[in-house]
């Protein structure tokens, strides 16, 4: 972006008005800089994931083509985009009606409030625009030196494994207890109790000592395992241990950094969109929309909240859940007494006039992510009222069809789709597999198989990074399978899948 253009006065006035309303409701957000974009630039920035400064790569071009097509065919339109930085950048689409712009501004205020306060955004880099620009400069430099094709191909490889990170690692403080390291170097033998010589046999029985020695030896062996514990951040492991050129390592770092940056967004999609929808709706209907605008507002809002068969609308689910929470906490529908009450009739008319709804909402937006949000507040009553169902592919009819409306099944399915951002759990279990410095990964199978053909291609890419054979242990159709890639040679054989 060549400098920030001033937005027109009427939009700035509007911004002031909306932000005043938002503050009055208790939202607290970073300063927001708006920019008005034509649809082409909007699609461009959307293709770059919101960052106009990203490194050159063809897949952005591919995403752009898709966005541009679906805009031209009138299938979709990006109303707004907001970037989690300080100050927050938000983009408005040129030519949208004023009601739309107002709604978008209210929506953006709530998003930025969410960025600022939600715990899962607490570790994000708020200067990501600059960081992305630095990444781009680094990638360009590598391209100038090593050729565009080589660098781009390697980035393809990195992107293929970019999801193999540990989203929670940012929140875990890892400390090694320095004193506890290397007990084996401190003494030669297992410790014994002091005893007179004739008593030694009884106070330090030889069987016990042997057992202790064996335990120690096992521990030593354990230590020699590499990595010591299965490691979920596969990218980190590769950066640390794969035989890479300097520029390759740099590319991998860049891809990993950016992947981590987008993790909180992915973890709070429902909450974040729900929160923004909740507030734009409140601000517009209670304050900002004039009576002449309300119909247009309602029309746009209906579009945002529309549901289609077989598709989960995060806006809808999020906003309804927040409203449900607000209502429940306003009426005191929580706590032990509520949980233990099994009279439907009593529950329906339950109202303790606690009025804690708003307080609870702000608490929820601070502490929860999508999984905990759904796990705690997606109740039987909510599920039935909102007509949720789970669906799946039926082999029998060859169709995608509704599977169940049973609360437990729906909730399980919903949570499963959110766990690990809907991605399989993959760990590095052995960096010296078969003592041949091969890499062994393990897919923690939780009921759903991997997409085999994609897994094979991904394995080929991993081989390019590790340069020695790479295998993954997984389960296919209930049987343990080991996929192994060695050069062009990809084999698939049955294997023990413990656990």
């Amino acid at each position: 972006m060549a400098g920030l253009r001033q937005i027109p006065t009427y939009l700035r006035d509007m911004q002031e008005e909306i932000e005043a309303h938002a503050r009055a409701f208790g939202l607290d957000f970073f300063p927001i800089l708006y920019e008005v974009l034509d649809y082409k630039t909007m699609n461009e920035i959307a293709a770059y994931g919101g960052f106009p400064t990203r490194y050159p790569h063809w897949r952005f071009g591919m995403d752009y083509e898709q966005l541009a097509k679906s805009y031209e065919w009138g299938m979709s339109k990006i109303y707004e985009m907001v970037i989690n930085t300080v100050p927050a950048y938000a983009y408005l689409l040129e030519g949208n009606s004023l009601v739309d712009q107002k709604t978008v501004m209210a929506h953006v205020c709530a998003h930025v409030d969410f960025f600022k306060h939600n715990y899962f955004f607490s570790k994000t880099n708020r200067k990501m625009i600059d960081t992305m620009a630095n990444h781009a400069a680094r990638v360009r430099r590598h391209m100038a030196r090593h050729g565009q094709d080589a660098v781009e191909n390697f980035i393809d490889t990195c992107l293929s494994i970019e999801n193999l990170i540990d989203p929670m690692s940012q929140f875990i403080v890892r400390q090694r207890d320095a004193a506890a390291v290397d007990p084996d170097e401190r003494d030669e033998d297992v410790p014994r109790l002091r005893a007179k010589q004739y008593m030694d046999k009884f106070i330090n029985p030889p069987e016990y000592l042997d057992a202790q020695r064996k335990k120690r030896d096992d521990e030593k062996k354990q230590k020699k395992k590499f990595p010591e514990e299965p490691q979920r951040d596969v990218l980190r492991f590769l950066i640390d241990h794969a035989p890479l050129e300097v520029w390759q390592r740099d590319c991998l770092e860049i891809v990993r950094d950016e992947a981590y940056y987008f993790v909180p967004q992915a973890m709070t999609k429902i909450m974040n969109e729900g929160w923004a929808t909740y507030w734009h709706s409140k601000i517009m209907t209670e304050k900002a929309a004039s009576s002449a605008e309300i119909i247009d507002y309602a029309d746009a809002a209906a579009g945002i909240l529309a549901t289609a068969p077989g598709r989960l609308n995060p806006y809808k689910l999020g906003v309804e859940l927040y409203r449900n929470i607000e209502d429940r906490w306003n009426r005191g529908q929580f706590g032990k007494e509520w949980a233990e009450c099994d009279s439907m009739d009593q529950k329906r008319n339950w109202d303790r006039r606690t009025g804690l709804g708003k307080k609870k909402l702000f608490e929820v937006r601070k502490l929860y992510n999508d999984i905990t949000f759904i796990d705690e507040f997606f109740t039987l009553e909510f599920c039935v009222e909102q007509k949720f169902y789970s669906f799946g592919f039926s082999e029998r009819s060859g169709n995608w069809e509704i599977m169940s409306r049973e609360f437990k099944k729906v909730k399980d399915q919903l949570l499963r789709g959110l766990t690990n951002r809907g991605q399989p759990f993959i760990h590095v279990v052995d960096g010296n597999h078969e003592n041949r410095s091969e890499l062994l990964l393990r897919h923690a199978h939780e009921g759903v198989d991997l997409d085999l053909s994609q897994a094979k291609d991904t394995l080929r890419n991993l081989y390019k990074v590790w340069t020695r054979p790479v295998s993954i242990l997984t389960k296919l159709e209930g049987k343990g399978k080991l996929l192994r890639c060695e050069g062009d040679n990809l084999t698939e054989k049955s294997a023990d899948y413990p656990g």
Partner: protein
Amino acid sequence: MSQRIDLDHGRFRQIIRGKIKQHLRKYISQGEMIARKGNDKVAIPLPSVDIPHFKFGDKQSGGVGQGEGQPGDPLGQGKDGKPGAGEAGDRPGEHLTDIEVSLQELAEIMSEELALPRILPKGTEKIVSLKDKYTGIRSTGPESLRHFRRTFKQALRRQISTSTYDPKNPVIVPIRDDKRYRSWKTLPEPQANAVIIYMMDVSGSMGDEQKEIVRIESFWIDTWLRSQYHGIESRYIIHDAMAKEVDRDTFFKTRESGGTMISSAYKLCAKMIEDEYPPDLWNIYPFHFSDGDNWSVDDTVTCVELLKTKILPFVNLFAYGQVESPYGSGQFIKDLGEHFDEDERVVTSEIKGKDAIMDSIKDFLGKGK
């Protein structure tokens, strides 16, 4: 303003082109891409260029939705809108997605891959006609071109701004300054100046497979010639013992059982050229496909005669493609070879099967005529 995304987008298209090129032989021989053809674009199923990940298989994962319906109700256009597509693990690494490519681009790819020379059109003068096109609005013009809605809009605007508009009595009276007229531009429009005359033997010995080959080959010939001329016409003639002109659909669907008199088609072709396509204005491309069986030696002589006197003097190229069929003797190509071996305007090609289509296209178009 040239935007950064244009570089990345260009890069993406370049990758796509590379992929198409790499698989061109397959596309040409399988003809699967012709299935979806728009006006000037084709959708090509391409091995996905998207980046592979470790991810869950589609079928087992399922999801959650919201709305009406009973368990067991199908969701119609499902998650990806392609229920039942793509068998798991069928061909590793081949995830097909449809990519749109313009015919122009496709022709370029084809010419790069097949090393086709550009065609030098006959005659140096371009045939161009002028055409008027309504392109805008202006404030003067003949009454017959008055733009009613724009005029009234303008009048309304004026009345509002001068506060003479009364919403309770919404009378709008345009005055002279309000009037708006359509305006036009005269654009040179290149005229169709090439014609392809497809002829095909539809006698009993030409089976579905043979016709499929002709269909695929004609698509590629069309694509190439279209990229070389501003406009192009295609005519279709089928023949057994008799010849008649048909539309494109009929051309590929008709199946007759009669004998074969190739001369009948050549006669019709010659007549068509004589009546409708003066050779000084038209680049003419007759393509004839047959399995090489002709009724009699006499008829073959007639054919040769017709070619020599009535067809060859007027055309850029006369192409004969002989599709191998279990019933045909394949004699005709030899006869042509005998008579026209020296003649540059005649190209013959034997098409043994789908795999040979690409080479045969190269035979036909490789001369740059």
